[in-house]
């Protein structure tokens, strides 16, 4: 897939594209594409390239820099963060995908035009949530002194907002809307005729879902789940405000704390290596999601 190429490759592509146009230097096309190329180069290609460079550079025995994977091997020190991130994103995505899928199924069955447009707008707004204010609102609601925490006697259940449970509950705030946004077209696209044909042939509602509905919706649902895993894995802001540093390490939080610890302690290289793994996971997620969406689109055309 084209978007799976590394950023530096694609940036090079843009440059060679610009190169072809250089013969017509001063033409409106060059003038209007130059600022964009410059911005992408300075604020995207260079930082990501620099990150990869640091992550893959190790000091040889003679002190000379060479390419190597030492920084990635050292990530075993952060196994806890990697494990926590995997746990939170897998559990969070599974819960969010289940609730989101049921919700968007119900929305598609209600068939109210007003509800559809309200849901479409709200879900796209909420799917982009996940910033610092989100964490604050959950601290007030479910934190140790939270309004609902005492009301529901959550301390008796052993629930803590500042653990994986809290992160999973908080992430639902943007994971469920994302799932609804992604799967609503899938459920809305299940044709009435298929249902009618199923009934005409003597099938029950159960037969319809087992033989037609779920197989058609499955790629869309799986794609949504994968997108949620990636989205939960990459979330930093709300987790940083809620957890801070140390108590429950996650990959994005570790990147931030290792960066603060500075270049002298080797923390910077660790942060860059973790950053590279995040980019790789995000590329895989987007690739799989795109493939599954295409597959789902085949049926729903």
């Amino acid at each position, binding site marked *: 897939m084209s*978007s799976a190429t590394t*950023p530096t490759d*694609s940036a090079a592509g843009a440059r060679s594209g610009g190169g072809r146009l250089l013969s017509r230097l001063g*033409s*409106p*096309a060059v003038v209007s*594409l130059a600022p*964009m190329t410059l*911005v992408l180069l300075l*604020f*995207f290609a*260079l*930082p*990501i390239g*620099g*990150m990869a460079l640091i992550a893959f550079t190790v000091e040889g025995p003679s002190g000379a820099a060479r390419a190597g994977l030492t920084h990635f091997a050292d990530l075993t020190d952060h196994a806890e963060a990697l494990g926590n991130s995997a746990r939170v994103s897998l559990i969070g995505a599974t819960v969010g995908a289940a*609730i989101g899928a049921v919700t968007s199924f119900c929305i*598609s*069955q*209600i*068939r109210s*035009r007003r*509800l559809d447009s309200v849901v*479409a707008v709200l879900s*796209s*707004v909420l*799917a*982009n949530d996940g*910033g*610092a204010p*989100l964490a*604050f609102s959950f601290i*007030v*609601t*479910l934190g140790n002194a939270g309004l*609902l925490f005492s009301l529901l006697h959550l301390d008796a259940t052993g629930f803590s907002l500042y653990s994986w449970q809290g992160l999973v509950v908080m992430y639902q*705030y943007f994971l*469920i809307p994302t799932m*609804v*946004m992604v799967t*609503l*077209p899938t459920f*809305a696209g299940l044709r009435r005729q298929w249902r*009618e044909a199923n009934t005409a042939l003597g099938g029950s509602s159960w037969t319809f879902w087992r033989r037609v509905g779920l197989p058609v919706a499955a790629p869309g649902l799986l794609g949504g789940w994968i997108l949620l895993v990636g989205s939960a894995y990459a979330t*930093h802001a709300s987790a*940083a*405000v809620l957890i801070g540093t140390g108590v429950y390490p996650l990959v*994005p939080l570790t*990147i931030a704390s290792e*960066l603060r610890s500075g*270049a002298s302690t080797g923390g*910077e290289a660790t942060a*860059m290596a*973790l950053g*590279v793994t*995040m980019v790789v996971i*995000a590329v895989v997620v987007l690739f799989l999601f795109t493939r599954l*969406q295409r597959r789902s*689109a*085949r049926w729903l055309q």
Partner: protein
Amino acid sequence: MAAVTPVPHDRPTLARRSGRATMWLPVLAVAIYIAVPLLCSIGYAVLPGWSFSLSAYSVLGDDASLLSAAGRTVTVAVLTVVALLLTLVPAVVAVHLWAPRLRPVLEILCTLPLVVPAIALAAGIVSLLRWGAQQGRGTLPNAISQFVQHPDLPLILVGTYVVLCLPFTFRSIDAGLRTIPLKAMVEGSASLGSSTWGTILRVVLPNIRGPVLFSIFFTTALCFGEFSVAATLSQDTVPVWLFTVSNTDFRASIAVAVLLNLTTWGLMLIGTLATQRFAPGRSGGTGGTGEETSADDAEDGPSPDGSSAEDRTRAHAPHSPTCEQADPEKVTR
């Protein structure tokens, strides 16, 4: 079974009345889950000790650090919007007009930032700035590194936010340009004696005002709410201020967080609605007047006759194979 009766969509068909009520339960549950934290925050901010008081908001006028953070955030937001429009609109117009072969390249480049988590991009930027700073006093990289990180005018945030907004805004503007007869407009305008840039300013821009408004509001919302990059680069914007002040004055931070949250939601809402409101019809010149025009969306596939909202969603969905998250307005059309 009620499911078989083929009647218009907007009447309950698939489920009987009682079944329909059951269908509302999960929707209501999610709605409550969404509303409760917001209501709790508002309650906590304005009802200290169960009596109404806006005293928590006195921090807005009293706290000089908040004012400077707010000033910084607004400056960054304004500059980001200007920089984004000045770089993105000409680039997308250019590939549509003169270099259609470069359009896929630009699309991939503009979608790539979606793949890079903000914290990873921030890490890369930190590495670059530190490299610059290590080149020693008086060198050019050092001077640049200092200059772009200046707390009065953190240009590094402007550039990074432009990149973070690209995946969302590119799609919006690209889709907007696809629905208008761009080439004919530019040629017609040129034959009437207008310059290329005059044409873009006076003819093209008004025809894509929906996507442009969406870009403006989306970018502003992102700049107001962004935490990861600003915190990593130690730039004191409003979200970073919230985090800092929450240790000393929690109620004030909640009060400001509620304001910030409602502001960003409001901006996103206006942005999304603007795209619908100004969805261009085929006639070009006039903006769309409502839902009907979005069915005219020429490039996105044929709309079935008498298309309902559901049909339209279906007609559009297969044509947006890449990340739906990148394209909020597409889903809402």
